[in-house]
């Protein structure tokens, strides 16, 4: 029943697919109930946001924005040679393009506020990334990041020390203590056989990793598989399939609207928009509540190549699609009734030294680690969320290695997929892989890590130096999880999705932001300029006054005879052009003190001592005579 006059809305199949009903994010029902992202701020961390464009301007949040490339508060994109700095604006449009403005398109959370942090358009360091991830983190609720290390099928990289520290600080202190929500794109390295477990942003426990499917629900040619992917949503596919329609910049070749937004870059912002809808109905969801709701509500669907496997807790996961398709109706109805999960608990095994050879396939090296009840007593960890494995392996061709992890339930995760393009001879040094496929399963039991060499070099060449197992989860029991699953299913009718039903929601903490009001270089330059200008003119005027004083003084020193003031011409007086200013003179007053006084004859309106008032009787002392009677009797030093 929702209608928009935005000209491209009918082409926005990801919002409401008339051609293939059901192939969309199922958001119109949520909009009908006035859930549009109101009160939530999403920040696009990218190459800038053209916030002056009609679709962005009404929802733009300058308070949540910043430009780290130019170090000023305005994240406007800068035109560049390839006319490529439209990326951030397109992502912003997917999230919060304003509706019913007869311009281009509509955003998923068109009632939310959109901010921009420009950081990709210039040299980027670890410290800059860290600043970006926490910038205005009490204003920005969701950070949408459609970028990452190269997707060339041979890079192993992720956030460095400061970036990791900032992600962790963000989930601890961001968003009034509920935790910033970091949404990242899983990567476009599909054609190079890449896997997003080699990307530290995608396989971080602190981020929501989103993959892409095309309009037919299939994994597009560019998409990557990985065991740490939480879910997928729509994006463009191959040439025969439609891409995402969204706002575009209107600089250089831009027209303000595009029908060609694609890649996992286009999927992540849609997920960020849906999370904004969730936060409107329940602002106190923590960063882990959001991850849980995604796991509980993402929908598995028919795709033979997806290799769905259902784990011990009843969740189905695919390396291609995560826990399935995001569904805005399910996400929001679950959020509405969600009560927070228990605190994050974790367990880390000791660093397990192995120094064992990695055999050639079909043989394999297996190493086990048993996690006992006692091991978990301290943390109270009962059921799993993320499982991470940190390994150091030497091998002359890293891409030949295959790493598989089996949880105690037997659930298999391909955490290190072989990569034909990766010929790096340095192997892995403390690289952390992770999986979400054991989500909700019991934590206790034996974990099995299997390493194989699937290369075709003749001598076996790899050695597993050491590894460490880290479990993240909570005190929830399998029964709690099943109960929650049932509760959510009862909410999917939408019966709670009205203003009459609201669970208590704490307001969160007041956390001061670093008041690093750093004067921007531009401001600094302006201040210096104004300052110099002021100083120069001050000096100039002082000099001028000094010199004019000296000149006056040099023309007239009267010690002996009477002072002759320049005769004021009758004519000047009549014309009123006579010079009003007269130098101040020191006169001796009757009591001997020195008073400075203007010559009363030409001073109009100034207060003058009453001894000079006309009606006084002639005073007995010449000093008291009115000036015009003094006739030179008086000594004046000017």
């Amino acid at each position: 029943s929702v209608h928009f006059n935005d000209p491209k809305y009918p082409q926005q199949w990801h919002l409401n697919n008339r051609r293939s009903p059901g192939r969309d994010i199922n958001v119109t029902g949520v909009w009908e109930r006035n859930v549009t992202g109101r009160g939530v701020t999403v920040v696009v961390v990218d190459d800038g946001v053209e916030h002056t464009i009609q679709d962005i301007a009404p929802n733009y949040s300058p308070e949540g924005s910043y430009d780290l490339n130019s170090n000023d508060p305005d994240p406007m994109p800068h035109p560049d040679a390839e006319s490529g700095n439209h990326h951030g604006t397109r992502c912003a449009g997917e999230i919060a393009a304003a509706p019913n403005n007869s311009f281009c398109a509509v955003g998923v959370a068109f009632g939310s506020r959109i901010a921009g942090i420009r950081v990709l358009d210039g040299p980027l360091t670890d410290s800059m990334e860290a600043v970006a991830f926490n910038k205005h983190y009490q204003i920005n609720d969701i950070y949408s990041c459609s970028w990452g290390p190269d997707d060339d099928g041979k890079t192993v990289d992720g956030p460095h020390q400061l970036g990791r520290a900032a992600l962790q600080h963000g989930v601890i202190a961001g968003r009034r203590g509920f935790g910033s929500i970091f949404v990242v794109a899983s990567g476009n390295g599909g054609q190079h056989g890449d896997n997003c477990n080699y990307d530290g942003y995608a396989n971080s426990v602190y981020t929501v990793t989103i993959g892409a499917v095309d309009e037919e629900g299939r994994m597009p040619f560019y998409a990557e598989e990985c065991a740490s992917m939480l879910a997928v949503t729509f994006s463009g596919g191959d040439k025969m399939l439609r891409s995402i329609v969204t706002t575009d910049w209107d600089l250089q070749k831009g027209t303000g609207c595009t029908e060609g937004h694609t890649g996992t870059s286009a999927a992540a912002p849609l997920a960020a928009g849906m999370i904004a809808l969730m936060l409107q109905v329940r602002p106190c969801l923590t960063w882990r509540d959001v991850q849980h709701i995604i796991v509980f509500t993402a929908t598995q669907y028919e795709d033979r190549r997806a290799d769905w496997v259902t784990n011990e807790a009843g969740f189905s996961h695919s390396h291609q699609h995560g826990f399935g398709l995001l569904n805005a109706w399910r996400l929001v109805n679950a959020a509405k009734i969600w009560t927070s999960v228990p605190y994050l608990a974790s367990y880390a095994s000791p660093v397990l030294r192995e120094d064992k050879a990695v055999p050639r396939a079909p043989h394999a090296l297996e190493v086990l680690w048993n996690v006992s009840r006692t091991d978990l007593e301290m943390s109270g960890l009962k059921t799993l969320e993320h499982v991470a494995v940190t390994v150091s392996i030497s091998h002359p061709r890293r891409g030949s290695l295959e790493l598989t992890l089996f949880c105690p339930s037997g659930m298999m995760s391909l955490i290190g997929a072989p990569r034909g393009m990766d010929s790096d001879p340095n192997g892995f040094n403390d690289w952390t892989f992770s999986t979400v496929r054991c989500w909700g399963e019991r934590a206790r039991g034996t974990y099995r890590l299997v390493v194989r060499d699937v290369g075709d070099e003749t001598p076996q060449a790899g050695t597993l130096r050491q590894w460490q197992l880290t479990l993240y989860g909570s005190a929830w029991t399998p029964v709690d999880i099943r109960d929650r699953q049932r509760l959510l299913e009862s909410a999917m009718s939408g019966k709670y999705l009205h203003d009459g039903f609201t669970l208590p929601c704490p307001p969160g903490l007041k956390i001061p932001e670093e008041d690093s009001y750093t004067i921007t270089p531009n401001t600094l330059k302006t201040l210096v300029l104004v300052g110099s200008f002021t100083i120069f003119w001050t000096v100039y005027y002082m000099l001028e006054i000094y010199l004019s004083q000296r000149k006056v003084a040099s023309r007239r020193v009267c010690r002996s005879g009477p002072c002759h003031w320049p005769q004021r011409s009758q004519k000047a007086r009549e014309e009123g052009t006579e010079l009003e200013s007269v130098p101040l003179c020191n006169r001796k007053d009757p009591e001997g003190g020195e008073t400075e006084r203007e010559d009363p004859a030409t001073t109009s309106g100034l207060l003058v001592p009453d001894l000079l008032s006309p009606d006084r009787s002639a005073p007995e002392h010449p000093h008291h005579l009115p000036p015009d009677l003094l006739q030179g009797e008086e000594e004046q030093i000017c």
Partner: protein
Amino acid sequence: LAGTDGPGAQGLGGLSWAVHLDSPEGAEEALEQQADAVARAAGLLNAGRVGELHGYYVFVPPAGQQRAEAARQQVEAVLAGHEAVRWHSEQRLLRRAKR
């Protein structure tokens, strides 16, 4: 791709160091002063705290200082040996691709 050399690189030619001071419990002002002292000891300027990260600072070479290998190693030695520095890392340009 972000990460290519260009205008606005921190410090001279992108050189900068991130440090984590060893007494992050200290009050902000005390930490700031300690950061200034460590930066001076290494012949650098304290460019300020890293966003919201308590105890983390970025140091950059004074403008005009030649980017010599010897100077770099000198800085490395001072930061590695300074008792107030828990961790330090020379900031390198990261390659990041839009997706």
